[in-house]
Protein backbone atom coordinates (compact mmCIF):
# COMPACT_ATOMS: atom_id res chain seq x y z
CA UNK A 1 0.00 0.00 0.00
CA UNK A 2 3.03 2.27 0.43
CA UNK A 3 2.98 4.78 -2.41
CA UNK A 4 5.19 7.80 -2.00
CA UNK A 5 4.11 9.32 -5.26
CA UNK A 6 0.82 10.38 -3.69
CA UNK A 7 0.59 13.04 -1.02
CA UNK A 8 -3.02 12.28 -0.37
CA UNK A 9 -5.13 9.42 -1.63
CA UNK A 10 -8.90 9.41 -1.24
CA UNK A 11 -10.68 6.12 -1.80
CA UNK A 12 -14.45 5.80 -2.12
CA UNK A 13 -14.82 8.82 0.13
CA UNK A 14 -18.33 9.93 1.11
CA UNK A 15 -19.89 12.21 3.69
CA UNK A 16 -23.60 12.21 4.43
CA UNK A 17 -25.28 14.71 6.73
CA UNK A 18 -28.35 13.58 8.61
CA UNK A 19 -29.96 10.21 8.10
CA UNK A 20 -33.10 8.59 6.77
CA UNK A 21 -35.34 10.68 4.59
CA UNK A 22 -33.54 13.95 5.36
CA UNK A 23 -30.08 12.54 4.58
CA UNK A 24 -27.97 14.83 2.44
CA UNK A 25 -25.06 13.37 0.49
CA UNK A 26 -22.59 16.26 0.60
CA UNK A 27 -19.88 14.03 -0.90
CA UNK A 28 -20.09 10.65 -2.58
CA UNK A 29 -17.71 8.21 -4.23
CA UNK A 30 -14.68 10.48 -4.32
CA UNK A 31 -11.57 8.72 -5.66
CA UNK A 32 -8.61 11.03 -6.00
CA UNK A 33 -4.85 10.72 -5.85
CA UNK A 34 -3.19 14.06 -5.13
CA UNK A 35 0.47 13.85 -6.06
CA UNK A 36 3.34 15.12 -3.96
CA UNK A 37 4.53 18.67 -4.79
CA UNK A 38 1.45 19.29 -6.86
CA UNK A 39 -0.73 22.39 -7.01
CA UNK A 40 -4.07 20.64 -6.93
CA UNK A 41 -7.33 22.56 -7.21
CA UNK A 42 -10.86 21.62 -6.24
CA UNK A 43 -13.10 23.71 -8.47
CA UNK A 44 -16.87 23.82 -8.30
CA UNK A 45 -19.92 25.95 -7.63
CA UNK A 46 -21.08 26.91 -4.15
CA UNK A 47 -22.37 23.96 -2.14
CA UNK A 48 -20.69 21.26 -4.24
CA UNK A 49 -18.79 19.91 -1.23
CA UNK A 50 -15.35 21.52 -1.54
CA UNK A 51 -15.14 22.65 2.07
CA UNK A 52 -16.55 19.33 3.24
CA UNK A 53 -13.74 17.54 1.40
CA UNK A 54 -11.04 19.81 2.86
CA UNK A 55 -12.42 19.31 6.36
CA UNK A 56 -12.19 15.55 5.92
CA UNK A 57 -8.56 15.80 4.85
CA UNK A 58 -7.73 18.19 7.71
CA UNK A 59 -9.45 15.88 10.20
CA UNK A 60 -12.14 18.28 11.46
CA UNK A 61 -14.79 15.89 10.22
CA UNK A 62 -14.97 12.13 9.70
CA UNK A 63 -16.04 10.46 6.44
CA UNK A 64 -19.24 8.43 6.42
CA UNK A 65 -17.57 5.92 4.09
CA UNK A 66 -14.18 5.57 2.44
CA UNK A 67 -10.57 6.12 3.33
CA UNK A 68 -8.02 8.89 3.40
CA UNK A 69 -4.32 8.13 3.23
CA UNK A 70 -1.72 10.86 3.69
CA UNK A 71 1.69 9.88 2.33
CA UNK A 72 0.63 6.25 2.34
CA UNK A 73 -0.68 6.27 5.89
CA UNK A 74 -4.37 5.73 6.65
CA UNK A 75 -5.41 8.66 8.85
CA UNK A 76 -8.80 7.33 10.01
CA UNK A 77 -9.35 8.49 13.57
CA UNK A 78 -6.20 10.61 13.62
CA UNK A 79 -6.99 14.02 15.19
CA UNK A 80 -6.22 17.18 13.18
CA UNK A 81 -3.33 18.22 15.45
CA UNK A 82 -1.44 15.04 14.53
CA UNK A 83 -1.83 15.32 10.75
CA UNK A 84 1.05 16.77 8.70
CA UNK A 85 -1.48 19.12 7.16
CA UNK A 86 -2.25 22.78 7.79
CA UNK A 87 -5.13 24.91 6.65
CA UNK A 88 -5.61 28.46 5.40
CA UNK A 89 -9.22 29.07 6.40
CA UNK A 90 -11.79 30.74 4.17
CA UNK A 91 -12.22 33.59 6.68
CA UNK A 92 -8.63 33.33 7.94
CA UNK A 93 -9.60 32.49 11.58
CA UNK A 94 -6.67 34.51 12.93
CA UNK A 95 -6.42 34.60 16.73
CA UNK A 96 -7.70 38.07 17.62
CA UNK A 97 -5.86 38.22 20.96
CA UNK A 98 -2.44 37.51 19.48
CA UNK A 99 -0.09 39.68 17.45
CA UNK A 100 0.99 38.84 13.91
CA UNK A 101 4.20 37.29 15.22
CA UNK A 102 2.35 35.29 17.87
CA UNK A 103 -0.17 34.06 15.33
CA UNK A 104 2.59 32.92 13.00
CA UNK A 105 4.51 31.25 15.85
CA UNK A 106 1.41 29.59 17.33
CA UNK A 107 1.91 26.10 15.93
CA UNK A 108 5.59 25.97 16.88
CA UNK A 109 4.71 27.07 20.41
CA UNK A 110 2.11 24.31 20.63
CA UNK A 111 4.75 21.84 19.46
CA UNK A 112 7.03 23.03 22.25
CA UNK A 113 9.88 24.15 20.00
CA UNK A 114 12.66 26.22 21.60
CA UNK A 115 12.20 29.98 21.71
CA UNK A 116 15.12 30.79 19.43
CA UNK A 117 13.84 28.43 16.76
CA UNK A 118 10.37 29.94 16.96
CA UNK A 119 11.73 33.46 16.63
CA UNK A 120 13.86 32.49 13.64
CA UNK A 121 11.02 30.71 11.85
CA UNK A 122 8.57 33.54 12.53
CA UNK A 123 11.04 36.06 11.11
CA UNK A 124 11.54 33.89 8.02
CA UNK A 125 7.79 33.41 7.47
CA UNK A 126 6.98 37.09 8.01
CA UNK A 127 9.58 37.95 5.41
CA UNK A 128 8.31 35.28 3.03
CA UNK A 129 4.84 36.82 2.95
CA UNK A 130 6.16 40.39 3.01
CA UNK A 131 4.84 41.55 6.38
CA UNK A 132 8.06 42.93 7.85
CA UNK A 133 7.40 45.68 10.37
CA UNK A 134 3.89 44.46 11.21
CA UNK A 135 4.90 41.74 13.69
CA UNK A 136 3.47 43.63 16.67
CA UNK A 137 0.07 44.38 15.13
CA UNK A 138 -3.11 42.56 15.99
CA UNK A 139 -5.41 41.09 13.33
CA UNK A 140 -7.96 43.90 13.66
CA UNK A 141 -5.23 46.36 12.66
CA UNK A 142 -4.63 44.63 9.32
CA UNK A 143 -6.21 44.93 5.89
CA UNK A 144 -7.84 41.95 4.20
CA UNK A 145 -4.77 41.19 2.11
CA UNK A 146 -2.48 41.43 5.11
CA UNK A 147 -4.70 39.10 7.13
CA UNK A 148 -4.58 36.66 4.26
CA UNK A 149 -0.79 36.73 4.33
CA UNK A 150 -0.72 36.16 8.09
CA UNK A 151 -3.03 33.17 7.65
CA UNK A 152 -0.68 31.82 5.00
CA UNK A 153 2.46 32.38 7.08
CA UNK A 154 0.78 30.84 10.13
CA UNK A 155 -0.14 27.70 8.21
CA UNK A 156 3.31 27.39 6.61
CA UNK A 157 5.32 27.95 9.81
CA UNK A 158 5.09 24.38 11.17
CA UNK A 159 6.31 23.04 7.82
CA UNK A 160 3.28 21.06 6.65
CA UNK A 161 3.60 18.44 3.94
CA UNK A 162 0.21 19.41 2.60
CA UNK A 163 -1.33 22.87 2.72
CA UNK A 164 -5.09 23.13 2.40
CA UNK A 165 -6.40 26.47 1.18
CA UNK A 166 -10.14 27.14 1.32
CA UNK A 167 -10.96 29.96 -1.12
CA UNK A 168 -8.14 32.05 0.34
CA UNK A 169 -8.46 34.80 -2.26
CA UNK A 170 -12.22 35.19 -2.34
CA UNK A 171 -12.31 38.04 0.18
CA UNK A 172 -9.76 40.16 -1.71
CA UNK A 173 -10.40 42.78 -4.37
CA UNK A 174 -9.73 41.89 -8.00
CA UNK A 175 -6.32 43.53 -8.26
CA UNK A 176 -4.92 42.06 -5.09
CA UNK A 177 -6.37 38.69 -6.02
CA UNK A 178 -4.44 38.80 -9.29
CA UNK A 179 -1.19 39.52 -7.48
CA UNK A 180 -1.76 36.93 -4.76
CA UNK A 181 -2.35 34.32 -7.47
CA UNK A 182 1.16 34.72 -8.81
CA UNK A 183 2.63 34.92 -5.32
CA UNK A 184 0.87 31.77 -4.16
CA UNK A 185 1.94 29.88 -7.24
CA UNK A 186 5.55 31.01 -6.80
CA UNK A 187 5.43 30.10 -3.13
CA UNK A 188 4.22 26.62 -3.94
CA UNK A 189 7.01 26.10 -6.45
CA UNK A 190 9.67 27.36 -4.03
CA UNK A 191 8.53 25.39 -1.01
CA UNK A 192 7.61 22.23 -2.89
CA UNK A 193 4.66 21.76 -0.52
CA UNK A 194 1.59 20.01 -1.92
CA UNK A 195 -1.19 22.60 -2.21
CA UNK A 196 -4.82 21.57 -2.18
CA UNK A 197 -6.56 24.74 -3.26
CA UNK A 198 -10.30 25.29 -3.20
CA UNK A 199 -12.00 27.83 -5.41
CA UNK A 200 -15.18 28.47 -7.34
CA UNK A 201 -13.34 30.84 -9.69
CA UNK A 202 -12.39 29.08 -12.93
CA UNK A 203 -9.80 31.70 -13.97
CA UNK A 204 -8.02 31.22 -10.68
CA UNK A 205 -8.07 27.46 -11.10
CA UNK A 206 -6.83 27.54 -14.70
CA UNK A 207 -4.07 30.03 -13.96
CA UNK A 208 -2.58 28.35 -10.91
CA UNK A 209 -3.16 24.62 -10.97
CA UNK A 210 -1.10 21.66 -12.07
CA UNK A 211 -4.29 19.63 -12.01
CA UNK A 212 -7.92 20.45 -11.38
CA UNK A 213 -10.77 18.34 -10.06
CA UNK A 214 -14.06 19.87 -11.19
CA UNK A 215 -16.75 19.05 -8.65
CA UNK A 216 -20.50 19.20 -8.69
CA UNK A 217 -23.16 17.71 -6.44
CA UNK A 218 -20.56 16.07 -4.19
CA UNK A 219 -18.89 14.22 -7.08
CA UNK A 220 -15.79 14.75 -9.19
CA UNK A 221 -16.98 15.53 -12.72
CA UNK A 222 -13.58 15.68 -14.35
CA UNK A 223 -9.95 15.45 -13.32
CA UNK A 224 -7.15 16.78 -15.45
CA UNK A 225 -4.64 19.46 -16.35
CA UNK A 226 -6.10 22.95 -16.98
CA UNK A 227 -5.74 22.48 -20.76
CA UNK A 228 -7.58 19.17 -20.69
CA UNK A 229 -10.39 20.55 -18.59
CA UNK A 230 -10.78 23.58 -20.81
CA UNK A 231 -10.23 22.06 -24.24
CA UNK A 232 -11.79 18.68 -23.66
CA UNK A 233 -14.61 18.97 -21.13
CA UNK A 234 -15.93 15.55 -20.21
CA UNK A 235 -19.57 16.52 -19.91
CA UNK A 236 -22.13 19.30 -20.19
CA UNK A 237 -21.55 20.53 -16.66
CA UNK A 238 -17.80 20.97 -17.10
CA UNK A 239 -18.20 22.56 -20.53
CA UNK A 240 -20.70 25.05 -19.16
CA UNK A 241 -19.01 25.78 -15.82
CA UNK A 242 -15.54 26.33 -17.31
CA UNK A 243 -15.54 29.15 -19.82
CA UNK A 244 -19.27 29.01 -20.48
CA UNK A 245 -19.33 26.99 -23.73
CA UNK A 246 -22.26 27.18 -26.13
CA UNK A 247 -24.20 23.98 -25.58
CA UNK A 248 -26.27 23.15 -28.64
CA UNK A 249 -28.70 20.23 -28.82
CA UNK A 250 -28.32 18.13 -32.00
CA UNK A 251 -29.33 14.77 -33.45
CA UNK A 252 -27.01 12.36 -35.23
CA UNK A 253 -27.77 12.01 -38.95
CA UNK A 254 -26.01 10.07 -41.74
CA UNK A 255 -23.44 12.84 -42.44
CA UNK A 256 -22.98 14.13 -38.91
CA UNK A 257 -24.77 15.94 -36.14
CA UNK A 258 -27.70 18.03 -37.36
CA UNK A 259 -28.40 21.16 -35.31
CA UNK A 260 -31.46 23.33 -35.84
CA UNK A 261 -30.63 26.55 -37.68
CA UNK A 262 -26.92 25.71 -38.00
CA UNK A 263 -26.65 22.88 -40.48
CA UNK A 264 -24.71 19.65 -40.31
CA UNK A 265 -21.50 19.26 -38.34
CA UNK A 266 -19.32 16.34 -39.50
CA UNK A 267 -19.18 13.68 -36.78
CA UNK A 268 -19.67 9.97 -36.34
CA UNK A 269 -22.12 8.32 -33.99
CA UNK A 270 -25.23 6.23 -33.73
CA UNK A 271 -27.90 7.54 -36.08
CA UNK A 272 -30.78 9.29 -34.35
CA UNK A 273 -28.94 9.68 -31.02
CA UNK A 274 -29.47 12.95 -29.12
CA UNK A 275 -26.13 14.71 -28.55
CA UNK A 276 -24.86 18.04 -27.32
CA UNK A 277 -22.38 20.16 -29.25
CA UNK A 278 -20.02 22.22 -27.10
CA UNK A 279 -18.29 25.22 -28.72
CA UNK A 280 -16.28 27.88 -26.89
CA UNK A 281 -17.42 31.43 -27.73
CA UNK A 282 -13.87 32.51 -28.63
CA UNK A 283 -13.26 29.64 -31.02
CA UNK A 284 -15.84 30.84 -33.51
CA UNK A 285 -15.14 33.36 -36.24
CA UNK A 286 -18.04 35.59 -37.19
CA UNK A 287 -18.57 36.75 -40.80
CA UNK A 288 -21.21 38.40 -42.93
CA UNK A 289 -23.80 35.87 -44.09
CA UNK A 290 -23.12 36.44 -47.82
CA UNK A 291 -19.97 34.45 -48.55
CA UNK A 292 -21.18 31.14 -47.18
CA UNK A 293 -18.56 28.36 -47.40
CA UNK A 294 -19.14 24.67 -46.76
CA UNK A 295 -18.58 24.02 -43.04
CA UNK A 296 -19.88 27.41 -41.99
CA UNK A 297 -22.79 27.47 -39.56
CA UNK A 298 -25.87 29.59 -39.94
CA UNK A 299 -27.09 31.96 -41.12
CA UNK A 300 -27.98 33.60 -37.83
CA UNK A 301 -29.15 37.03 -36.67
CA UNK A 302 -27.25 39.32 -34.29
CA UNK A 303 -29.53 39.94 -31.29
CA UNK A 304 -27.16 41.86 -29.06
CA UNK A 305 -23.72 43.45 -29.19
CA UNK A 306 -21.92 43.43 -25.84
CA UNK A 307 -18.83 45.62 -25.46
CA UNK A 308 -16.55 44.54 -22.61
CA UNK A 309 -13.36 46.55 -23.12
CA UNK A 310 -10.85 43.85 -23.91
CA UNK A 311 -13.33 41.85 -25.94
CA UNK A 312 -16.44 42.21 -27.99
CA UNK A 313 -19.21 39.70 -27.74
CA UNK A 314 -22.37 38.98 -29.72
CA UNK A 315 -25.52 37.11 -28.88
CA UNK A 316 -26.91 35.40 -31.95
CA UNK A 317 -30.37 34.02 -32.59
CA UNK A 318 -31.70 31.51 -35.08
CA UNK A 319 -30.42 28.27 -33.55
CA UNK A 320 -32.18 26.11 -30.92
CA UNK A 321 -30.47 28.12 -28.17
CA UNK A 322 -28.94 31.63 -28.21
CA UNK A 323 -25.26 31.44 -29.20
CA UNK A 324 -22.44 33.57 -27.88
CA UNK A 325 -19.40 34.59 -29.87
CA UNK A 326 -16.47 36.51 -28.40
CA UNK A 327 -13.86 38.43 -30.39
CA UNK A 328 -10.69 39.80 -28.86
CA UNK A 329 -10.29 43.54 -29.54
CA UNK A 330 -7.43 44.72 -31.70
CA UNK A 331 -5.78 42.80 -34.51
CA UNK A 332 -7.55 41.77 -37.66
CA UNK A 333 -10.51 40.03 -36.05
CA UNK A 334 -11.28 43.12 -34.06
CA UNK A 335 -11.79 45.06 -37.26
CA UNK A 336 -15.05 43.20 -37.83
CA UNK A 337 -18.11 44.64 -36.20
CA UNK A 338 -21.82 43.95 -36.45
CA UNK A 339 -24.99 45.57 -35.23
CA UNK A 340 -28.20 43.97 -33.98
CA UNK A 341 -30.25 42.74 -36.92
CA UNK A 342 -27.23 41.86 -39.13
CA UNK A 343 -27.25 38.43 -40.75
CA UNK A 344 -24.05 36.50 -40.00
CA UNK A 345 -22.46 33.06 -40.34
CA UNK A 346 -20.09 31.28 -37.98
CA UNK A 347 -16.88 29.51 -38.87
CA UNK A 348 -15.56 27.22 -36.12
CA UNK A 349 -11.81 26.71 -35.68
CA UNK A 350 -10.57 23.24 -36.49
CA UNK A 351 -11.37 20.84 -33.65
CA UNK A 352 -13.36 23.47 -31.80
CA UNK A 353 -16.61 21.54 -31.72
CA UNK A 354 -16.88 18.80 -29.13
CA UNK A 355 -19.56 16.20 -29.20
CA UNK A 356 -20.95 15.34 -25.75
CA UNK A 357 -23.39 12.58 -24.97
CA UNK A 358 -26.57 14.38 -23.98
Amino acid at each position, binding site marked *: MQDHGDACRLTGLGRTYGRGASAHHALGGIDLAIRANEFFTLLGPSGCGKTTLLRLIAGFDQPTVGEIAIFGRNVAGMPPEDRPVNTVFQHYALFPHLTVAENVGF*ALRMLGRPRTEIAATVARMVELVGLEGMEKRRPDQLSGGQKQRVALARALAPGPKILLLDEPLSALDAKLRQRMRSELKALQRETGITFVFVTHDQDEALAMSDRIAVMQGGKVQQLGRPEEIYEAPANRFVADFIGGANLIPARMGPEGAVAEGLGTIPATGTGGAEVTLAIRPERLAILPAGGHQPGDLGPLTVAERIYMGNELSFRLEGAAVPLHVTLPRGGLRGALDFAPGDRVALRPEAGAIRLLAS
Partner: protein
Amino acid sequence: MKLHRLLLAPSLGTILIFMALPIALTTLYSVLTPAQHGGVIWQPSGEAYVRLMFERDIFDDTLSFNADYLQILGRSALQAGFATILCLLIGLPTAWFIATRPPAQKSLWLMLVTVPYWVNLLVRTIALLLMLRDEGPINGALQSMGLTDGPLPLAYNNFAIGLGLVSSFLPFMILPLYAAIERFDFSLLEAAYDLHASRWQAVWSVILPILRPGLIAGGLLVFIPGIGSYLAPDILGGGKTLMLGNLIGMQFQGSRNWPFGAALSTVLMSVTLIALILVARRAAREAA
Protein backbone atom coordinates in the same frame (compact mmCIF):
# COMPACT_ATOMS: atom_id res chain seq x y z
CA MET B 1 -32.61 71.38 25.28
CA LYS B 2 -33.16 68.71 22.71
CA LEU B 3 -35.88 66.16 23.21
CA HIS B 4 -33.62 63.14 23.22
CA ARG B 5 -31.78 64.53 26.24
CA LEU B 6 -35.08 64.59 28.09
CA LEU B 7 -35.33 60.87 27.47
CA LEU B 8 -32.30 60.47 29.72
CA ALA B 9 -33.86 62.41 32.59
CA PRO B 10 -35.66 59.51 34.34
CA SER B 11 -32.58 57.31 34.44
CA LEU B 12 -30.30 60.15 35.48
CA GLY B 13 -32.78 61.13 38.20
CA THR B 14 -32.98 57.55 39.43
CA ILE B 15 -29.22 57.21 39.56
CA LEU B 16 -28.92 60.51 41.41
CA ILE B 17 -31.61 59.84 44.02
CA PHE B 18 -31.09 56.14 44.61
CA MET B 19 -27.35 55.74 44.09
CA ALA B 20 -25.28 58.89 44.17
CA LEU B 21 -27.04 60.54 47.12
CA PRO B 22 -27.05 57.44 49.38
CA ILE B 23 -23.36 56.86 48.67
CA ALA B 24 -22.58 60.48 49.44
CA LEU B 25 -24.67 60.30 52.61
CA THR B 26 -22.94 57.10 53.74
CA THR B 27 -19.54 58.67 53.19
CA LEU B 28 -20.66 61.76 55.08
CA TYR B 29 -22.00 59.74 58.04
CA SER B 30 -18.68 57.93 58.31
CA VAL B 31 -16.96 61.15 59.39
CA LEU B 32 -19.58 62.21 61.97
CA THR B 33 -19.98 61.38 65.66
CA PRO B 34 -22.32 58.55 66.71
CA ALA B 35 -25.41 59.47 68.72
CA GLN B 36 -26.39 57.45 71.77
CA HIS B 37 -29.27 55.44 70.32
CA GLY B 38 -28.37 55.28 66.63
CA GLY B 39 -28.19 58.16 64.22
CA VAL B 40 -25.48 60.79 64.16
CA ILE B 41 -24.52 64.04 65.78
CA TRP B 42 -23.44 66.67 63.26
CA GLN B 43 -19.92 66.95 64.55
CA PRO B 44 -16.95 65.88 62.40
CA SER B 45 -14.88 62.95 63.70
CA GLY B 46 -12.31 60.50 62.34
CA GLU B 47 -12.98 58.07 65.15
CA ALA B 48 -14.83 55.56 62.96
CA TYR B 49 -11.79 55.08 60.71
CA VAL B 50 -9.40 54.89 63.66
CA ARG B 51 -11.53 52.06 65.02
CA LEU B 52 -10.97 50.00 61.89
CA MET B 53 -7.42 49.23 62.95
CA PHE B 54 -6.93 50.46 66.52
CA GLU B 55 -8.52 49.92 69.90
CA ARG B 56 -8.77 52.91 72.23
CA ASP B 57 -8.08 52.15 75.86
CA ILE B 58 -11.10 53.13 77.98
CA PHE B 59 -9.00 54.59 80.77
CA ASP B 60 -5.96 56.35 79.28
CA ASP B 61 -7.12 56.85 75.67
CA THR B 62 -3.99 55.18 74.19
CA LEU B 63 -4.32 53.40 70.85
CA SER B 64 -3.28 49.80 70.36
CA PHE B 65 -3.33 47.89 67.11
CA ASN B 66 -6.39 45.70 66.63
CA ALA B 67 -6.61 43.37 63.66
CA ASP B 68 -10.11 42.05 64.38
CA TYR B 69 -11.87 44.08 61.72
CA LEU B 70 -9.14 43.60 59.14
CA GLN B 71 -9.49 39.88 59.76
CA ILE B 72 -13.19 40.07 59.11
CA LEU B 73 -12.52 41.93 55.87
CA GLY B 74 -9.91 39.34 54.86
CA ARG B 75 -12.19 36.46 55.76
CA SER B 76 -15.03 37.94 53.75
CA ALA B 77 -12.75 38.49 50.76
CA LEU B 78 -11.48 34.92 51.02
CA GLN B 79 -14.99 33.53 51.30
CA ALA B 80 -16.17 35.58 48.31
CA GLY B 81 -13.03 34.56 46.40
CA PHE B 82 -13.69 30.87 46.96
CA ALA B 83 -17.31 31.32 45.92
CA THR B 84 -16.15 33.12 42.76
CA ILE B 85 -13.75 30.33 41.81
CA LEU B 86 -16.41 27.70 42.48
CA CYS B 87 -18.94 29.64 40.40
CA LEU B 88 -16.36 29.80 37.62
CA LEU B 89 -15.69 26.08 37.68
CA ILE B 90 -19.42 25.32 37.57
CA GLY B 91 -20.43 28.26 35.40
CA LEU B 92 -17.95 27.85 32.55
CA PRO B 93 -19.01 24.32 31.48
CA THR B 94 -22.67 25.24 32.01
CA ALA B 95 -22.40 28.39 29.91
CA TRP B 96 -20.47 26.46 27.26
CA PHE B 97 -23.17 23.80 27.18
CA ILE B 98 -25.97 26.35 26.78
CA ALA B 99 -24.15 28.43 24.16
CA THR B 100 -23.54 25.38 21.98
CA ARG B 101 -27.19 24.18 21.98
CA PRO B 102 -29.33 24.73 18.89
CA PRO B 103 -30.90 28.22 18.97
CA ALA B 104 -34.36 26.93 19.86
CA GLN B 105 -33.06 25.20 23.00
CA LYS B 106 -30.87 28.04 24.21
CA SER B 107 -33.65 30.26 25.51
CA LEU B 108 -35.15 27.35 27.44
CA TRP B 109 -31.83 26.61 29.17
CA LEU B 110 -31.27 30.30 29.90
CA MET B 111 -34.71 30.50 31.45
CA LEU B 112 -33.93 27.49 33.65
CA VAL B 113 -30.80 29.28 34.89
CA THR B 114 -32.95 32.17 36.09
CA VAL B 115 -35.70 30.00 37.65
CA PRO B 116 -34.25 30.26 41.19
CA TYR B 117 -34.83 34.00 40.96
CA TRP B 118 -38.53 33.46 40.94
CA VAL B 119 -38.20 32.62 44.63
CA ASN B 120 -37.24 35.26 47.17
CA LEU B 121 -33.57 35.08 48.24
CA LEU B 122 -34.45 34.85 51.94
CA VAL B 123 -36.77 31.91 51.33
CA ARG B 124 -34.16 30.20 49.16
CA THR B 125 -31.48 30.66 51.81
CA ILE B 126 -33.73 29.26 54.52
CA ALA B 127 -34.63 26.33 52.26
CA LEU B 128 -30.93 25.62 51.82
CA LEU B 129 -30.50 25.71 55.59
CA LEU B 130 -33.31 23.18 55.98
CA MET B 131 -31.49 20.90 53.54
CA LEU B 132 -28.18 21.18 55.42
CA ARG B 133 -29.45 20.92 58.99
CA ASP B 134 -28.43 17.99 61.21
CA GLU B 135 -32.00 16.70 60.92
CA GLY B 136 -32.24 17.69 57.25
CA PRO B 137 -32.81 15.35 54.31
CA ILE B 138 -29.13 15.16 53.33
CA ASN B 139 -27.92 14.00 56.72
CA GLY B 140 -31.01 11.81 57.03
CA ALA B 141 -30.25 10.08 53.74
CA LEU B 142 -26.55 9.62 54.56
CA GLN B 143 -27.37 8.06 57.92
CA SER B 144 -30.15 5.81 56.69
CA MET B 145 -27.83 4.50 54.00
CA GLY B 146 -25.32 3.81 56.74
CA LEU B 147 -22.67 6.02 55.17
CA THR B 148 -22.27 8.15 58.31
CA ASP B 149 -22.86 7.40 61.98
CA GLY B 150 -23.95 10.83 63.09
CA PRO B 151 -24.98 13.97 61.25
CA LEU B 152 -22.25 15.72 59.23
CA PRO B 153 -21.75 19.36 60.25
CA LEU B 154 -23.12 20.85 57.05
CA ALA B 155 -24.91 23.91 58.41
CA TYR B 156 -23.72 26.88 60.48
CA ASN B 157 -20.15 27.01 59.14
CA ASN B 158 -18.05 28.45 56.33
CA PHE B 159 -18.96 25.54 54.09
CA ALA B 160 -22.64 26.42 54.34
CA ILE B 161 -21.92 30.11 53.73
CA GLY B 162 -19.89 29.27 50.63
CA LEU B 163 -22.66 27.06 49.35
CA GLY B 164 -25.15 29.85 49.95
CA LEU B 165 -23.01 32.36 48.06
CA VAL B 166 -22.52 30.01 45.12
CA SER B 167 -26.21 29.19 44.87
CA SER B 168 -27.23 32.85 45.03
CA PHE B 169 -24.70 34.23 42.58
CA LEU B 170 -24.06 31.42 40.08
CA PRO B 171 -26.37 32.90 37.40
CA PHE B 172 -24.35 36.14 37.51
CA MET B 173 -21.38 34.06 36.40
CA ILE B 174 -23.24 32.00 33.83
CA LEU B 175 -24.92 34.84 31.96
CA PRO B 176 -21.87 36.97 31.04
CA LEU B 177 -19.91 33.82 30.22
CA TYR B 178 -22.76 32.66 28.02
CA ALA B 179 -22.72 35.99 26.20
CA ALA B 180 -18.96 35.70 25.65
CA ILE B 181 -19.12 32.11 24.40
CA GLU B 182 -22.04 32.97 22.17
CA ARG B 183 -19.79 35.47 20.37
CA PHE B 184 -16.86 33.04 20.24
CA ASP B 185 -15.83 32.12 16.71
CA PHE B 186 -15.57 28.34 16.74
CA SER B 187 -13.42 28.25 13.63
CA LEU B 188 -10.66 29.59 15.93
CA LEU B 189 -10.85 26.31 17.79
CA GLU B 190 -10.44 24.39 14.55
CA ALA B 191 -7.54 26.65 13.65
CA ALA B 192 -5.92 25.83 17.00
CA TYR B 193 -6.27 22.09 16.46
CA ASP B 194 -5.06 22.48 12.89
CA LEU B 195 -1.97 24.24 14.26
CA HIS B 196 -1.15 21.25 16.45
CA ALA B 197 -2.71 22.41 19.72
CA SER B 198 -3.89 19.67 22.07
CA ARG B 199 -7.29 20.07 23.77
CA TRP B 200 -5.76 21.64 26.87
CA GLN B 201 -3.50 23.89 24.86
CA ALA B 202 -6.51 25.07 22.88
CA VAL B 203 -8.35 25.86 26.12
CA TRP B 204 -5.40 27.73 27.63
CA SER B 205 -4.07 29.51 24.58
CA VAL B 206 -7.25 30.32 22.69
CA ILE B 207 -10.53 29.82 24.57
CA LEU B 208 -9.68 31.34 27.96
CA PRO B 209 -7.84 34.42 26.64
CA ILE B 210 -10.66 35.21 24.25
CA LEU B 211 -13.33 34.65 26.90
CA ARG B 212 -11.45 36.78 29.41
CA PRO B 213 -13.75 39.81 29.31
CA GLY B 214 -16.65 37.49 30.12
CA LEU B 215 -14.67 35.77 32.87
CA ILE B 216 -13.78 39.12 34.44
CA ALA B 217 -17.36 40.39 34.23
CA GLY B 218 -18.71 37.19 35.78
CA GLY B 219 -16.03 37.22 38.46
CA LEU B 220 -16.81 40.79 39.49
CA LEU B 221 -20.55 40.15 39.49
CA VAL B 222 -20.04 37.28 41.95
CA PHE B 223 -17.19 38.67 44.02
CA ILE B 224 -18.57 42.15 44.70
CA PRO B 225 -21.96 41.14 46.11
CA GLY B 226 -20.28 38.10 47.69
CA ILE B 227 -17.85 40.09 49.82
CA GLY B 228 -20.61 42.20 51.34
CA SER B 229 -23.32 39.54 51.43
CA TYR B 230 -25.55 39.56 54.48
CA LEU B 231 -28.14 36.80 54.27
CA ALA B 232 -25.91 33.77 53.68
CA PRO B 233 -23.54 34.40 56.63
CA ASP B 234 -26.42 35.42 58.86
CA ILE B 235 -28.66 32.44 58.19
CA LEU B 236 -26.38 29.65 56.96
CA GLY B 237 -23.44 30.66 59.15
CA GLY B 238 -25.76 31.00 62.11
CA GLY B 239 -24.01 34.28 62.92
CA LYS B 240 -21.14 32.24 64.33
CA THR B 241 -18.44 33.56 62.00
CA LEU B 242 -18.74 37.26 61.51
CA MET B 243 -18.56 38.51 57.91
CA LEU B 244 -18.32 42.03 56.68
CA GLY B 245 -21.98 42.29 55.72
CA ASN B 246 -23.13 41.23 59.20
CA LEU B 247 -20.61 43.48 60.90
CA ILE B 248 -22.00 46.43 58.95
CA GLY B 249 -25.57 45.35 59.66
CA MET B 250 -24.83 45.15 63.39
CA GLN B 251 -23.66 48.75 63.51
CA PHE B 252 -27.04 49.95 62.34
CA GLN B 253 -28.96 47.59 64.63
CA GLY B 254 -27.74 46.44 68.07
CA SER B 255 -24.47 48.38 68.32
CA ARG B 256 -26.00 51.56 67.02
CA ASN B 257 -22.75 53.01 65.80
CA TRP B 258 -23.85 54.47 62.48
CA PRO B 259 -20.58 56.25 61.64
CA PHE B 260 -18.59 53.04 62.13
CA GLY B 261 -21.02 51.10 59.94
CA ALA B 262 -20.78 53.87 57.34
CA ALA B 263 -16.98 53.79 57.54
CA LEU B 264 -16.96 50.02 56.97
CA SER B 265 -19.25 50.48 53.97
CA THR B 266 -17.05 53.23 52.59
CA VAL B 267 -13.95 51.07 52.91
CA LEU B 268 -15.71 48.15 51.18
CA MET B 269 -16.88 50.45 48.40
CA SER B 270 -13.40 51.93 47.94
CA VAL B 271 -11.73 48.53 47.81
CA THR B 272 -14.25 47.42 45.19
CA LEU B 273 -13.79 50.60 43.20
CA ILE B 274 -10.00 50.33 43.22
CA ALA B 275 -10.22 46.72 42.07
CA LEU B 276 -12.57 47.73 39.28
CA ILE B 277 -10.29 50.53 38.13
CA LEU B 278 -7.28 48.20 38.09
CA VAL B 279 -9.18 45.64 36.02
CA ALA B 280 -10.46 48.29 33.60
CA ARG B 281 -6.97 49.78 33.21
CA ARG B 282 -5.45 46.42 32.46
CA ALA B 283 -8.15 45.65 29.91
CA ALA B 284 -7.60 49.02 28.25
CA ARG B 285 -3.85 48.52 28.14
CA GLU B 286 -4.22 45.13 26.53
CA ALA B 287 -6.68 46.39 23.98
CA ALA B 288 -4.18 49.08 22.93
